[in-house]
């Protein structure tokens, strides 16, 4: 299992698409969390998203909320793509047979992939925190504002919550890739759910229909948004709103993570590799 996990990590690390996804996640996060609000506060980005947040929201004391704020939607979408690529690529290239002919069981390979994707998810979250810390420190220095950093406990809780959200979305990508045996359709359907359906449900259906509003409390996106909100993410951030408590959100997200990984493993184990 250790050798298989090392092999999976090598494949992810050496794959240019992994680095591109990380770069996109960091650039988007920095742009909409720090640069646009900072430019808005200086009158250079009027009307842009988050332009009215103000400089205070970009300072180090808000590092936790700012770093995980993208995970309910856009950074979540990037993690979903990462999960699809890690597993769906084997279908696209026809490499399942090459791997399995070397002797490891399907579940060994799957377990190795899950471990590698989980580590990659943590790496993305840590990169968001690290680049956010550097950027917020630079803004504090530029503005002459105090650099009050979050406590270690808050930081650990934020990283843990971010990892849970990231891994859950990556898990959705994994199960879609296994179920649909490919890359393009799982990414397309996953993004439609994450970027469109979730928004339609929360913005249009939930205010009109009670059962949809109730359903929101059990869907992954709103729970990720609630968890981010409970850790300080601004409610102006897309997908972030307090619908449920943090304990409920953690339980639901963990449940989805287990469900996605479990269903993916079951499907992979039972079906023929064509």
């Amino acid at each position, binding site marked *: 299992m250790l050798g298989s996990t090392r*092999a999976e990590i090598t494949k992810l690390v050496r*794959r240019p698409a992994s680095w591109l996804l990380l770069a996109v996640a960091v650039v988007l996060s920095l742009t909409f969390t720090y640069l646009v609000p900072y430019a808005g506060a200086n009158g250079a980005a009027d009307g842009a998203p988050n332009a009215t947040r103000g400089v205070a929201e970009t300072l180090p004391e808000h590092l936790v909320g700012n770093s995980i704020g993208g995970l309910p939607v856009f950074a979540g979408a990037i993690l979903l793509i990462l999960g699809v690529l890690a597993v769906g690529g084997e279908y696209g*290239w026809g*490499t399942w*047979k*090459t791997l*399995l002919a*070397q002797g490891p069981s399907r579940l060994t390979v799957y377990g190795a992939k899950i471990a590698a994707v989980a580590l990659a998810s943590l790496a993305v979250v840590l990169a968001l925190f690290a680049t956010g810390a550097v950027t917020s420190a630079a803004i504090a220095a530029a503005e002459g504002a105090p650099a009050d950093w979050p406590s270690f406990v808050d930081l650990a809780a934020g990283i843990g919550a971010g990892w849970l959200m990231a891994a859950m979305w990556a898990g959705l990508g994994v199960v879609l890739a296994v179920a649909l045996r490919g890359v393009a359709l799982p990414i397309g359907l996953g993004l439609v759910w994450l970027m469109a359906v979730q928004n339609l449900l929360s913005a249009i259906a939930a205010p009109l229909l009670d059962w949809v509003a109730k359903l929101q409390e059990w869907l992954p996106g709103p729970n990720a948004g609630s968890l981010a909100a409970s850790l300080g993410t601004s409610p102006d951030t897309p997908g972030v709103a307090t619908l449920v408590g943090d304990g409920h959100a953690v339980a639901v997200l963990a449940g989805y993570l287990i469900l996605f990984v479990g269903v993916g493993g079951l499907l992979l184990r039972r079906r023929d*590799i064509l």
Partner: protein
Amino acid sequence: MFPVETRELTKRYGQLVAVDRVSLTVRPGEVYGFLGPNGAGKTTTLRMLLGLVRPSSGTVRLFGEDVGQSLGDVGALIEGPAFYPYLSGRDNLRVLARYAGCPAGRVGVVLDLVDLTDRAGDRYGTYSLGMKQRLGVAAALLKDPKLLILDEPTNGLDPAGMADMRRLIRRLGAAGKTVLLSSHMLGEVQQICDRVGVVSGGRLIAESTVAELRGGARLRVVADPIQDAAARVRALVGQDRVRVEDGALELDIEAGKAAWINAELVGAGIDVSELGVRERELEDVFLELTHVG
């Protein structure tokens, strides 16, 4: 304990029976040719041997064990090579070596075996089809397996590459490895295989040594008048051992009787203009068995 033993192996996809009660046995140390037209069920059978496709019924045993427990002694190249295009050939093999749990030093050994060391640092995506095929064989050899399953290993190779591959397979066979070779190149199979199995319509319709399958040599006689010659020879050797094909007699008798047949025909006033031994090629047998052509 046979390297490969299937019993009544069957795979159905809905109403379609892709593999129909195939029972084949590959013996230790032999090079076994697995033949059949496109869509006959060869690759599905090979996939079942590796556990990639689950049988609808029947059993597969490799070295006497169920598939899941015995792939450690098996190397395979199934339905063309497939690797990660962004990694080099060498790094692809390194990744696979980690899955296989074999020492990294094997990577260099197998690259040498397939003559790919010079290009091993290049990205797989830049390889020609022949180089991809050789990397596929290298991957199959990584674990130094006792049983090698090769599905069309010479696809995409130029004539020199095909000759190299034949030599490699022969060498592996001579080194005591068992090779299960699926190929459309019947001349190649005839040259390097000890036994063959022929599948058609999902069923194993023949399994025998190459020599047995090709049968004995036939005597070919061109004579005039041909009908008189046919009647005379039928009277001598029996009705069912004589056929008239393309204006010549095909006699299913030992080649050593050629002089006797010649003397008999000449003695009967029949002109004999050609007398020779004709050996059946494996391709002829294959086409007869599978009703193609």
